[in-house]
């Protein structure tokens, strides 16, 4: 759930940090460096990976074969993170990512997960009634499109490679990247040109 921590939790964190510093396990600089690094991670990274895959067949092949290597090829530090898998949407197949057991999320390429991704409602319902959940995000898939829901785990993280929207022929990679948002990379909505419908 979202919300502010209690005073007790804040005090507990500071006591833990103080003890870890006393024992030489970490410094304040270590902590601040990680905060800065996590702040830099954002869905723009995932968006750039998608845009490159839309324009570069060799990169697309790498992305689908080894998401971790494809992220590293974009300069993302993946050391210590679980492997990244990428799910390819097709005209008759849409992917939706959830973590039913907790909140596993490819933070290195998408940044901090949104609260709704971690909510009990999303975790419970994405696998039971994905089309109803998609509708709550304003996404209506044509009836012929199958939905494949994929569960992220502590050992494997997933991201969606959506289909390139029609009408973007000749666009540069940078311009294409501006079309792609976090929600597209999780699969709760679809990239589209401004003014076009989500289901187009």
């Amino acid at each position, binding site marked *: 759930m979202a919300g502010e921590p209690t005073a007790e939790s804040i005090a507990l964190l500071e*006591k833990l940090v103080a003890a*870890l510093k006393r024992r030489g396990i970490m410094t304040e600089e270590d902590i601040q460096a990680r905060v800065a690094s996590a702040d830099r991670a954002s869905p723009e990274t995932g968006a750039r990976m998608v845009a490159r895959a839309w324009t570069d067949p060799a990169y697309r092949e790498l992305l689908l074969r080894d998401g971790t290597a494809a992220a590293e090829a974009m300069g993302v530090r993946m050391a210590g993170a679980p492997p990244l898998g990428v799910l390819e949407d097709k005209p008759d197949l849409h992917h939706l990512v959830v973590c039913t057991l907790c909140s596993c999320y490819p933070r290195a390429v998408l940044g901090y997960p949104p609260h709704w991704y971690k909510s009990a409602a999303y975790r419970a319902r994405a696998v039971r009634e994905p089309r109803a959940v998609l509708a*709550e995000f304003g996404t209506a898939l044509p009836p012929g499109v199958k939905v494949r829901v994929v569960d992220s785990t502590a050992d494997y993280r997933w991201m969606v490679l959506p289909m390139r929207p029609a009408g973007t022929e000749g666009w540069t990679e940078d311009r294409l990247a501006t079309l792609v948002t976090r929600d597209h990379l999780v699969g709760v909505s679809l990239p589209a040109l401004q003014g076009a419908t989500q289901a187009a």
Partner: protein
Amino acid sequence: MTEVPLKHDLGGSPRFRCTPVEPDDDAPPNDFDKRVDAVRSVLRDKKLFTVDEMRLNIERLHETEYFGLTYYEKWLRSVVAVMVAKGVVSWEDLA
């Protein structure tokens, strides 16, 4: 006997069947959240804390805490439990 799913095993759970997903809930993490995440990340790289240890010690929380604490408060409880269990810090440090 019907098997009762563990509290964290929410996939398909009817308990939240009628709870809407609130897509507008997009608040960025606060300073506490970021600090917990940063401490976890340093401990992971120092080989003192694995993702499985984190998960297990969140799943072990009492249901009241599991559904009552904020997301990163649960992470903190898990980090503390593992650091105490490994003798990295003591309860006296945290008292």
